[in-house]
């Protein structure tokens, strides 16, 4: 019975980390810069999951294996921008808002599914407690 919540909570932590990364991506979508200059545009963060939970030394559960920084930029022609390069281009992170929103929905739904699993485990524990009363 012990450790049942660890598995669900590891997934809550992983999904929240993913939501954090998505929020950061969406927030930094309009930060421009020059990859070769002093002010660089932000890179896109992608959260990678893997099975197992090293925090609890368990094979069950899920953890964030890596947060990949993808350096993909698209240029916009803004010659008056102080960050523009010699050709008048400012580089922005190549973030696809639709893709980010879909991932955000998936993370939120997955978070809810794990909350449902926690509720189920709680109701099991409660009925085990009732044996004693």
């Amino acid at each position, binding site marked *: *019975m012990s450790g049942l919540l660890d*598995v669900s909570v590891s997934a809550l932590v992983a999904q929240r980390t993913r939501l954090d990364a998505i929020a950061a991506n969406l927030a930094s979508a309009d930060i421009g810069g020059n990859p070769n200059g002093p002010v660089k545009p932000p890179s896109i963060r992608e959260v990678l*999951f893997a099975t197992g939970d090293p925090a609890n030394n368990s094979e069950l*559960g*899920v953890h964030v294996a890596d947060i990949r920084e993808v350096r993909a930029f698209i240029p916009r022609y803004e010659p008056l921008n102080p960050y523009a390069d010699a050709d008048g281009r400012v580089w922005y992170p190549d973030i696809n808002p639709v893709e980010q929103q879909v991932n955000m929905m998936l993370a939120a739904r997955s978070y809810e599914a*794990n909350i449902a699993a926690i509720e*189920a*485990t709680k109701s*099991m524990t409660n*009925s085990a407690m009732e044996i004693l009363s």
Partner: protein
Amino acid sequence: MFDRLVGRNAMPALERALQFASARQRVIVNNIANLETPGFRPVDVSVEGFQDQLRAAIDDRQARLASGVGDGAASGADGGLSLEDTDEVMLTTSGLELTPRPIGEGILGHDGNDRSLERILQSLTENVMQFRFAAALVRGQFASLDAAIRERP
């Protein structure tokens, strides 16, 4: 069937049922935790397999009791209920150890995960119901013991 669930020898069987449900809960919760993990295949153990195993053990004990071995057949730490190990369910000192298998259904996604949220949540709900059912019967057993001790209901 019913007398075996509420009779005096029911407790060992109910104990196994509770152990099975709590071990299976760990498997199901892990499936839910890994809904979005690339390459993960949901796993489960067969409830029917465990119930057959339990039924065989109960029948075996009933046969031994009926053949006149007496109450000795229902004594011991496991109440005379000897569960035969299968390749999915093994009895250890700390409870039941499960060896779940991939449940190969659903379409394999691009991430190599053939999740089926509805099936997983169905087994979650069923498992909780089975646990609560067994726990309620255990509670009933203790209530009858209590009534016997107090000599009034």
